[in-house]
């Protein structure tokens, strides 16, 4: 007892002194500087997220009474036809995302070497990413309208209007039309990430490979690809989360009608306007978060097995995991 009290006394005394030392001052500065960001992070990310999880156990609207109904909302999600269909739509976006990544990697490799007009093409391909998603939605709405941009261009190339499909009305292709607008928008961003990664590859390696008689394809396969593995993984994970949470193209272009309602569009329809099933929509968000977490986990494991070396990437993977975590939460 006595000893402990003494220790405490000693601590108190030394704290005052300690605060005046360089280390103490450092600590004060760290606390004061991190306090506001942490507070903001808590208020605008973790608190709303916690609230959302709470809401998911209630049958409630924005106003009015709330009834606690346990896991009913979660059960509903897995028994409803529309939620499962919406998840299936993600496959379209996932395929689109893979095409997008391959194309981005191709352009990035081309443009990392000396190409005529390289900077122009870099800019031109990256440009769509700078336009707001809503604006892109409107652009593509008119692009696909019967007899408008796309149809006129195809007619110039010799197609007959009667033989052209209705890009948004025909249920066999309307999801691909929407996916294309998303690929068009995000390919540039992926490409820039890849170019950045490829730039960090030591140029001497290419020279050495050339001397050994490696062609461009081999250089790509054995030098570039292994060096930018981390970025490829990152882009893949982002592509998966992105395709699960595809929202803007179907929301703006078709409003989710005609079998284009993705998971997020459905969530919006249920959460707002006349329906206002806030609890159910919150539960959907939580479920999506878990789906993304699980898929990301599998991907990471898959990559570990594929490359048989996860340690070097570990730090970055964790970051990505956290990133997708917060993204899903929103």
């Amino acid at each position, binding site marked *: 007892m006595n000893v402990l009290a003494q220790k405490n006394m000693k601590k108190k005394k030394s704290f005052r002194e300690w605060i005046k030392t360089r280390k103490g001052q450092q600590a004060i500065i760290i606390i004061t500087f991190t306090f506001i960001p942490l507070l903001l992070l*808590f208020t605008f990310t973790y608190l709303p997220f916690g609230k959302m999880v709470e809401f998911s156990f209630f049958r409630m609207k924005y106003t009015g009474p709330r009834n606690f109904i346990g896991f009913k909302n979660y059960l509903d999600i897995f028994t409803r036809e529309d939620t499962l269909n919406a998840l299936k739509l993600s496959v379209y976006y996932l395929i689109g995302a893979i095409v997008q990544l391959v194309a981005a990697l191709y352009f990035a490799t081309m443009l990392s070497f000396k190409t005529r007009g390289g900077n122009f093409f870099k800019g031109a391909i990256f440009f769509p990413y700078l336009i707001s998603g809503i604006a892109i939605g409107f652009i593509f709405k008119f692009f696909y309208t019967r007899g408008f941009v796309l149809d006129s261009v195809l007619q110039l190339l010799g197609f007959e209007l009667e033989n052209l499909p209705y890009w948004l009305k025909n249920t066999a292709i309307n999801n691909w039309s929407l996916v294309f607008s998303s690929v068009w928008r995000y390919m540039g961003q992926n490409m820039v990430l890849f170019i950045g990664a490829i730039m960090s590859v030591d140029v001497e390696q290419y020279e050495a490979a050339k001397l050994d008689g490696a062609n461009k394809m081999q250089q790509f396969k054995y030098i570039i690809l292994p060096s930018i593995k981390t970025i490829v993984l990152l882009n893949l994970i982002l592509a998966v989360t992105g395709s699960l949470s595809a929202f803007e193209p179907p929301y703006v272009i078709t409003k989710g009608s005609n079998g284009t309602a993705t998971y997020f569009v459905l969530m919006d329809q249920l959460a707002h306007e006349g329906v206002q099933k806030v609890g159910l929509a919150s539960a959907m968000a939580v479920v999506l978060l878990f789906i993304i977490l699980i898929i990301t986990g599998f991907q990471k494991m898959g990559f570990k097995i594929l490359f048989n070396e996860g340690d070097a990437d570990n730090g970055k993977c964790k970051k990505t995991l956290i990133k997708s975590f917060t993204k899903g939460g929103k």
Partner: protein
Amino acid sequence: MKKKKFLALVLAVVLTISMVACGNEVVENNGETNEVAGTETDSEAVEAVEEVTGSYFENIVLGETGTDIETTISWFNHRTDLDENGKLAEYIAKFNELYPNIIVEVETTTDYAQDSLVRLTSGDFNDVIMIPSIDKSEYPNNFVSLGSKDSMGEKYNFIDTATFDENVYGLPYMAGANGGVVYNSRIFTEAGITETPATPEAFIDALKLIKENTDATPLYTNYAAGWCFNQWEPNIGVATTGDVDYYNNGLNHDSDPFSTVAKPIYQVLYDAVANDLIEDDYTTTDWESCKAKINQGEIACLVLGTWAIPQMKEAGDKPDDIGYMAFPVSVDGVQYILAAADYNYAVNANVSEDNQKAGQIFVKFMVEESGFNNDIYGLPIVKGGEVPAIYSALDGVTMLENLPSPVGEETFHDDLNSESELAIQSAADPRMCALVDEAANGGKTLDDIMAEWDAKWSGAQETLGIDAE
């Protein structure tokens, strides 16, 4: 290490304390404002009983009451068009001739239904607002009561939509007929249609004639705009049954409304789509350009309320071609159309007393003296007012107003709308778009779709414990 732990602890404590403090403050504030609002309305009610009968609002004499109030009020509404063309400013200038000390600031937005809901939910909203679709039980917390249902009912039409618990919380800025068909009379004549179609079959035949004899799109669905589909559903009840007690009461207790009462409405849409009588590529329709198209005769008709008529008339150089008829259903040979109030003005109950009074004076002015309602072809709000000439097209059609829900069942309709996800008249588009898709692609039959909706509706009645048969 210990010091670090200690620091972490301090940080955690500070964070928690600050959050707890914030939480407390919010709660306290809410309590206070609610109290203030409560006592104010109470004292108003007391005053009213002691001095004269009627509420503050009812006793306002424009130009005399409240001329000493000096304040600025803001008015949030959805008429971006009238704000941009300066029409609203004209009414406000007229108001300021009577009340130079009350400054009215106008704020408008195109996505009013959503924006206003967000503001209202947050509790921080404008002094005068148009009531969005919130539950009626929320009215007393947010809006000033303008008077009792009985005494307001003696002077004004269309008070039911904003009445809760015997109190009137808002007055409509205009009222009109709903669920009818805006049509281009020139195209109808050119197509050889001599009689206004009064049944779904006659209407489909008329559309076929238009397709054969003219270049116009017979029926424009406005599929992509979405919200236009809400405009079909006021016909549930009055137009399909002639029963004024159906929409707010009978419907809530009907377990299969869609395969019976409401079916003719969807029949018209389904048949029109299945017979290829709508726009070619419906997924890319555009609301703004449809106005000019019907004015010019590229579109023959649209299902909309009378509120849309001025916009269609102004969209081109042929305003006289625009006509309005009742939705093509008849009950025993008689056609009915629903007359109803549009958005209601309401005054924020959580602002200062001066602003509440100024807000009420402004609302009274807008309803009674501005001439606003008449300028936009509204049916009279003040009893005994003038009926605009445009309603002569509805000669022979009986105009009826829905009865309000029975006491104690006011929230049933909203609750069912939410629980069943059918969102009648509030977010009908996902459901109606699906109907169009099925009809166009030869999928489910109308009967199947109606049965599905009925199942959802009766399922919701069961969940909520509402009696139905």
